[in-house]
């Protein structure tokens, strides 16, 4: 089974087009990054003066010419892989994301359900919620630093906010869009209010909980990185690991451009795996959706 699936992937044109796309991207990036070398000959002089006339640096291609080459990034990465600071950064960011995210689920799902089920809860809490919702989580960073005793808690709180609003809105919308017929059918067949909550509202909202969580998870990674950059990541000592956001910032301050890119890619990987994990869990939680 597994072999035939692998075979199908290896013979599909979609797969190879994807591979080709990435290879071409890397090659162009490498070439662009080395533009200073291959633009040295006199042949390129007219082009260089054109660049100069446009206000760019003359010696290399704009933008891409200052980016470290993928080969250099890879070299720097293998170096960093053995340093404890890099892995502590991973661990710290991951911990903050998970802390904020899980807190957002624990608070957000019941809160969203309560808003959907109870008119009183909706009338009481939703207006305030809607007033606070448009405030971007990052705008909370300074306030959060003042509010919370430790920097760790401040950053986690900001990531919590990133996921919280999305989860609540999705749960509320999902619970509200459950078809009236399901309630009527359950009621006819002798369900109590609690039965209806447990057997209709909860499973009916589950797909929206999964979607809200996946979106919320994406936002927490965006937020944690920025929060770490702004707050200094909880560690002023360079290289000891203040989260991946701080890792990037620190690399920038230290002038190590390769490490900036290493940090960027690391966050991409972390975000991808977190979302993938949620997607997989979501599939197990909502097996009836696999056929649609």
């Amino acid at each position, binding site marked *: 089974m597994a072999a035939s699936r692998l075979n199908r992937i290896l013979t599909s044109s979609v797969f190879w087009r994807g591979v080709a796309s990435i290879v071409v991207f890397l090659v162009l990036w490498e070439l662009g990054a080395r533009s200073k070398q291959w633009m040295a000959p006199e042949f390129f002089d007219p082009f260089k003066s054109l660049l100069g006339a446009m206000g760019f640096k003359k010696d290399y291609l704009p933008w891409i010419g200052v980016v470290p080459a993928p080969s250099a990034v890879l070299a720097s990465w293998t170096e960093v892989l053995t340093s404890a600071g890099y892995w502590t950064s991973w661990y710290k960011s991951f911990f903050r994301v998970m802390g904020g995210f899980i807190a957002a689920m624990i608070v957000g799902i019941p809160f969203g359900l309560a808003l959907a089920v109870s008119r009183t809860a909706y009338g009481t809490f939703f207006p305030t919620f809607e007033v606070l919702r448009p405030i971007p989580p990052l705008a909370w960073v300074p306030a959060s630093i003042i509010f919370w005793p430790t920097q760790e808690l401040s950053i986690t709180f900001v990531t919590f906010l990133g996921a919280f609003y999305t989860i609540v809105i999705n749960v509320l919308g999902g619970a509200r869009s459950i*078809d009236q*017929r*399901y309630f*009527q*059918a*359950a*009621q*006819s*067949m*002798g*369900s109590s209010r609690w*039965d209806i909550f447990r*057997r*209709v509202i909860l*499973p*009916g909202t*589950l797909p929206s909980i999964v979607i809200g969580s996946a979106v919320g998870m994406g936002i927490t990674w965006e937020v944690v990185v920025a929060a770490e950059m702004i707050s200094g990541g909880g560690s002023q000592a360079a290289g000891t690991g203040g989260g991946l956001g701080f890792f990037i910032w620190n690399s920038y301050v230290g002038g190590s451009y390769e490490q900036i890119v290493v940090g960027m890619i690391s966050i991409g990987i972390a975000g991808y795996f977190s979302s993938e994990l949620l997607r997989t869990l979501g599939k197990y939680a*909502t*097996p*009836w*959706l696999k*056929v*649609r």
Partner: protein
Amino acid sequence: MDLRAPEPRGGPAVTRGRILIDDVVKIYDPEGAAVMAVDHCSLDIAAGEICMIVGPSGCGKTTLLNAIAGFHDITSGTILLDGEVLCSKDKPKAEPGPDRIVVFQNGALFPWKTNLDNVVFGPVMQGKLGRREAVDKGRAMMADAGLAGVELNYPGEVSSGMRRRVEIVRALMNDPKVLLLDEPYRALDSLTKSVMHEALLEIYYRNKVTIFFITHDLEEAIFLGHKVAIMTTRPCKPKKVLTVDIPHPRDYGVLTSKRFRELIEETNDAVHEEALKAFQAGEKEG
């Protein structure tokens, strides 16, 4: 014309499930727009009878069904089930209950439960059967309805025709007095529909219950029903009540029989007239 319903033939006589609709009026938004949906409607449906309600879409048939099921209230009149008041002027909304189960127009199987879990839902909820017994009974009834093999599939994994059958089995598992069907075959293609008609009759012959069946398809109505009530378009009340004297059990041979054609001819004008009225009134499909 003899308005009494013939005794349903075959199997034991049915003694429960008589619905008496007496002078029912339903006005939506009585304080404001005051739209009359049902206008002094009276109809007597015998126990174990298949009563087909025919009328153009949006004529108010579903309003009547919702009143019996207990999903909506009525403005005045009375609906009795086996002599007991379901709803009246003093108690405008009936209590929904397992003695009256609706099979919905677009289906209401819980998509998050397997077909079998859907089927056992009612008896388990009501505490009538333990989960084990319910599963045994559910499997047996599904097998009888030609649904063996899809018990552990989700509704989304089987054809729409099968979903309808699962839903009817789910309804019958509650041992209802009345089955309320709201255009259940509307979304099906005509071939599937013809199979479903015979399947429904087969299920009916095994489990005699009163069937209140809404449709806008006259042929479907005469093929299935003991009684056919042709309704006027908004406001809704019986325009003509026809007793179908073709004996049960029926099969698809009936469709080409002389008597079937005669009955269609007898009623076609009435149905067409109402459809035309509905069309001119700009009633939208739905």
